[in-house]
């Protein structure tokens, strides 16, 4: 009798245990994110979102993403809202994703401006923020474990090769007077500060002859260009978002002013968008970052650049969303999440962070080597060499890597003719 009762009890317990286990397996992994279909960041935000979506669709076509705690593939549901490039709207929607949609993973919208409002919200809710491209250095601190930067280095790391070139190679080329123009936001401001500090550290070998910010929504640079030209600089560093770079380069071309050495960010990052608006001739001899959308790193995980480009072109044949670095960035976020979900012990947010940090130095994707500062969650890998744009015999853009020396594929043209 006792044996029968114990047997029945065991059967009931096993049954309950099985039910409980089945109930714990989620039917889908919810990834919450925002995109901007309008406003200042629409073009780049949509590119990033579309890159992430390509990964989601690819995984769902394969039956889902492998999640280690459940030892099975689970479909991914992308819960996404439109913040219209508005930080107030974004703040409300980030809250909604966490409190109403109860997403498993929270990914930020494009860039530092739209990520800035997510950082404190994620922290307050003890939710890990998958920061895709918000690289403002102020986001990362040792006392906030609820953020990791997945797809590009933090802003202070970005100008590493530009500052090294200007301060080490510059004086040899005759570059002594540098003009620094930047849009007043976290992304550009942090880079400007890094460059300013590096130039000050040269003790006069290189000096700043112009150092001013402009509002991020600036669309007219002609007067600013004239003011910079009046300082007779040997090199000009103009830091902005894509709309700033387009306006600056167009105004520069139209004004007939020529700088001997000019660096802007987006000709390398969003080449198609900038070339469409500025023209190939307007980009000749311009220095820029060479991101993964140009460098074609050999990935050990995920699609190669050519494969991803083919997937992108198949998905967006009308060209309404342009291919560029931010497309790669969104896709890279997916790859990082895929690896992390396959390694995490649970869906607990800090366990997820531990799994992502565990990828540091080991994950090589289309975006280069993923490397995190374990203490702050800031990306310190995926660095971008300094390149110069030249035109080939057909008038097409050609990127020449000029710094660091170990990656260089050619010599810089200085002064630009």
């Amino acid at each position, binding site marked *: 009798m006792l044996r029968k009762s114990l047997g029945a009890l065991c059967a009931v317990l096993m049954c309950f245990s099985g039910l409980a286990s089945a109930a714990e397996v989620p039917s889908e992994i919810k990834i919450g994110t925002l995109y901007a279909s309008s406003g200042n960041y629409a073009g780049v*935000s949509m590119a990033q979102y579309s890159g992430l979506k390509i990964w989601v669709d690819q995984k769902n076509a394969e039956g889902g993403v492998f999640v280690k705690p459940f030892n099975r593939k689970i479909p991914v549901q992308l819960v996404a809202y439109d913040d219209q*490039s508005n930080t107030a709207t974004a703040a409300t929607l980030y809250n909604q994703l966490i409190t109403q949609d109860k997403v498993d993973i929270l990914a930020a919208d494009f860039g530092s401006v739209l990520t800035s409002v997510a950082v404190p919200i994620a922290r307050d809710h003890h939710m890990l923020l998958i920061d895709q491209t918000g690289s403002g250095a102020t986001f990362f601190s040792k006392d906030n474990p609820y953020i990791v930067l997945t797809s590009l280095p933090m802003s202070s790391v970005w100008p590493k090769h530009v500052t090294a070139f200007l301060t080490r190679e510059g004086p040899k080329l005759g570059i002594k007077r540098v003009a620094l123009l930047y849009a007043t936001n976290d992304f550009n401001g942090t880079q400007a500060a890094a460059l300013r500090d590096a130039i000050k550290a040269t003790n006069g070998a290189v000096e700043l002859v112009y150092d001013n910010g*402009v509002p991020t929504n600036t669309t007219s640079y002609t007067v*600013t260009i004239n*003011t910079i030209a009046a300082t007779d600089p040997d090199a000009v560093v103009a830091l902005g978002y894509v709309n700033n770079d387009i306006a600056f380069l167009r*105004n520069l071309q139209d*004004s007939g002013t020529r700088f001997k050495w000019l660096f802007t960010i987006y000709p390398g990052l969003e080449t198609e*968008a900038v070339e469409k608006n500025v023209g190939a001739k307007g980009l000749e001899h311009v220095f820029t970052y060479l991101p993964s959308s140009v460098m074609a790193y050999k990935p050990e995980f995920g699609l190669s650049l050519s494969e991803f480009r083919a997937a992108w072109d198949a998905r967006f044949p009308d060209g*309404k*969303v342009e291919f560029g670095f931010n497309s790669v960035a969104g896709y890279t976020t997916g790859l990082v999440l895929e690896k992390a979900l396959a390694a995490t012990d649970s869906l607990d947010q800090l366990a997820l962070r531990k799994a992502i940090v565990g990828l540091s130095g080991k994950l090589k994707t289309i975006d280069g080597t993923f490397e995190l500062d374990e203490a702050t969650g800031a990306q310190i890998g995926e660095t971008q060499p300094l390149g110069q744009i030249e035109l080939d015999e057909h008038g097409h853009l050609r990127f020449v890597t000029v710094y660091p020396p170990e990656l260089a594929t050619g010599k810089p043209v200085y002064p630009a003719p």
Partner: protein
Amino acid sequence: MLAYSLLAGVIFGLYFSLVGMGLNLVFGVMRIVNLAHGDVLMLGAFAAFWLFSLLGLHPLVAAPIVFAAAVAIGWPLYFLFVPRLLRARDPEMLSIIFFFGMAQVVVALATIAFGTSERSIPGRVLGNGPMHILGQSYPTAWVVSGAVSAVTVALVTLYLYRTRLGTTTRAVMVHREEALATGIDVHRVSAIAFGIGLGLAAVAGVFAPFMLGSVRPAMGADINITSFAVIVIGSLGNPLGTVLGGIVYGIALMVMQSYFSSWANLLPYLLLIGILLIRPTGLLGRTLRHA
């Protein structure tokens, strides 16, 4: 540097006179606030972009076409919406809400149709290299855009002050009910003014790629803010005041960009606050308007 900024400010100001002119004309005649004004400008910009990209049509040729199309669209739109707005107890407030909604619809449709990317027409289309004026060099595209703006504003002035229709338009601007009592076909006059208002915005859009760097579906909101600053500085409801407002705004913006560039985006708001505190009727305003 100051001389360069001042002259650049005048050129830029002429363009912003054109940007604000349509908004002020519509407000002056109908006492409605067209919050979709910037979005009509955006549509004009995209029309010019596609006319240039697909048909190779020069912006100077595209401008009258775009103007005529906007007037043709504005006429039925007036009869469809505006008389209903004017019958409301508070037409100004209702028009703000109505055109805000319209603006959202236009932006959404434009985003679907054109995508989110920046678009522009090469500056060389309006002339290669810089143009030298009073010893200073300016982009030819700027100078041409400023000149076209000046000519367009002059034509509007001629229309208002040298034509019979313009005289009746000004009569409606002074007092709508009295104009009606004297036998003026107020709705016809208003519909034409509404169409011209949209047309002026669309023409300003044609030259936006040259003055504002590039165009995108969501650019309208920023344009609206600047337009309001321009017309409030000049005088609400006074199209000529818009010219003065545009030039004051243009010069102030360029001087700010030269000497205090980080603060330049505060300018429209500072000018608005300043004018409202010191001279609420605007620089060319005569009396306070009682709505």
